[in-house]
């Protein structure tokens, strides 16, 4: 093969690489076109109640946003999506978001979404064990396996804090990562002793499970779900602020008791779970604005758990428009 042919081949390869790289991941633009709504991509677990409501009621459109959904497995994957440009807004729990920020990743929290259901509301999360099993308290889980959605994720953190509060050291249990559907199967099949997830994610197999306790009750106010975006994205234009405004308006409407039935009906169309089942499930609290003090508390808990070395300065983390 002559040198010239080799050179041509190299050029061809570069072009191929460029096209392969230029691929579909550049759909996230986020910049407003001269007229018409701004296209933004948002990660989702599948169906969130504020998304189904906002879409149906045109709230996103009202704020000049056209939302494209990207399926994500949550947690660090959402942060990854945001950082790599695969999505503009990442749906991620507060702890993982703080962790990522603390490592030095240039992200900001542009909106809250869910906080845990605090008493007197019914607990929306549980540590689930098999109905017929002999587990009664945290102490019974010593030496056992506990299933969570993600290693190092919010479920593991909450469970760890709950265990410590009940006198069990985290070294005495093993955490195993399983997708939510598998968690229920695993508990029913005696492959794990317990699983920590929300009532809403139990599915049909959940009928054979009972909850030991709500691990989030001991935590105080915790942001179970938030939206983050990259710093550069937030800095360009006001798309992030408009997203927050849309969230505020959507959640205000969702809190109105008159809208409850319709909101579950819309959610049911998306998730294919009957609306009555959805309505009967305990609900997490809605919180579009971020309570800075609560966020700092969350960071402190991470320090206590030795997941991060020292309390980070969260000032640059939450832009003004997102704070309550």
């Amino acid at each position, binding site marked *: 093969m002559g040198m010239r042919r080799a050179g041509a081949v190299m050029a061809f390869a570069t072009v191929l690489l460029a096209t392969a790289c230029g691929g579909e991941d550049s759909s996230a633009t986020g910049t407003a076109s001269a007229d018409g709504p701004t296209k933004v991509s948002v990660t989702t677990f599948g169906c969130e109640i504020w998304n189904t409501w906002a879409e149906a009621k045109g709230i996103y459109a009202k704020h000049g946003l056209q939302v494209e959904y990207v399926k994500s497995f949550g*947690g*660090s994957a959402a*942060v990854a999506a945001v950082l790599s440009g695969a999505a503009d807004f990442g749906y991620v729990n507060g702890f*993982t978001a703080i*962790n*990522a920020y603390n*490592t*030095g*990743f240039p992200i900001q929290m542009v909106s809250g979404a869910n906080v845990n259901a605090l008493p007197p509301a019914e607990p929306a999360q549980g540590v689930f064990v098999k109905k017929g099993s002999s587990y009664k308290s945290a102490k019974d889980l010593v030496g056992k*396996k506990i299933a969570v959605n*993600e*290693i*190092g*994720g919010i479920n593991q953190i909450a469970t760890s804090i709950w265990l410590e509060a009940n006198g069990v050291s985290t070294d005495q249990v*093993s*955490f*195993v*990562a*399983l*997708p939510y559907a*598998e968690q229920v*199967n*695993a508990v029913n*099949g005696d*492959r*794990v002793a317990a699983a920590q997830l929300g009532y809403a994610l139990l599915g049909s197999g959940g009928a054979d499970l009972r909850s030991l306790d709500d691990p989030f009750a001991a935590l105080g106010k915790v942001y179970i779900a938030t939206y983050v975006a990259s710093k550069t994205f937030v800095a360009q234009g006001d798309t992030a602020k408009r997203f927050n405004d849309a969230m505020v308006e959507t959640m205000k409407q969702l809190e109105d008791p008159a809208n409850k039935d319709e909101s579950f009906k819309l959610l049911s169309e998306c998730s294919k779970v009957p609306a009555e089942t959805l309505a009967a499930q305990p609900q997490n609290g809605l919180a579009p604005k971020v309570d800075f003090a609560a966020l700092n508390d969350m960071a402190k808990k991470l320090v206590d758990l030795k*997941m991060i070395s020292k309390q980070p300065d969260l000032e640059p983390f939450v832009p003004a428009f997102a704070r309550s």
Partner: protein
Amino acid sequence: MSRVRGLLRGLVRAAQWLWLLAVLLVVWEVVARQAESLFIPPFSRIVVAFVDNWLSGDPASLFLSDQFWADVLPSLARLAAGYGLACAIGVVVGIVLGVWHQAGAFLNPLIRLGMSVPVTMLLPIAIVFFGITSGMNVSLIALGCLWPILVNTYDGVRGLDTVVTTTALSMRLSRRRYFLSVLLPGASPSIIAGMRISIGIALVLMVISELYAATSGLGFYIVEQQKLFRFPELWSAILLVALLGILFNAAFALLERSALRWHRGAKAGSERAS
């Protein structure tokens, strides 16, 4: 004097092999420091994390840290179990199928089918059958490693030099003699090649089988560090996997060379005899 010269020659040989690797690592270091990417730290930082994570133990435990014993050992044990199982089954079945042609033709499409399914796809199924135990990891590793060994053993048996086999026939060797003195040595280069490919696959599966539904291990550690955004630690684990791979590869290269020498010797012997 000649010993010193021998040592120098050895060093020169080593440098010949390693200079490119060293150059690339230096380039990595420089580029990473410039780019300041959080995902890909400079190599020096990875080395520091590596020493911290794996080599910070006391002399009693071979300088290997507790982390090493806690995470790497279980993974390696599972690797050994799965790989051993695959070798045993693969060699035996490969020989049987190689000798008994009908059985070979019977199972050939199924084997091709089995080889083409990525074992990762079988992870949820393995969890159903084995639960979240070491058995699950071992079975996945065994299943993934099985095919190259099986196919290569089969090829090795089938590809035996016909001159050798007809000579053996004419000598009316007993089954056992034929097996030990003709079949195995003749097929051994293929078998060992298959085993060498499989150890690489075993390493991959060791990591993958722990990416979820595991409670400990090197793959588990990698996932954990990724979820917690701890990149130097993540890379230190990748480096460890790389070193393990190099180690296994080198071991097999040695094995292959000695088996090949035996084979060549045997072949030369048979040529002289005919």
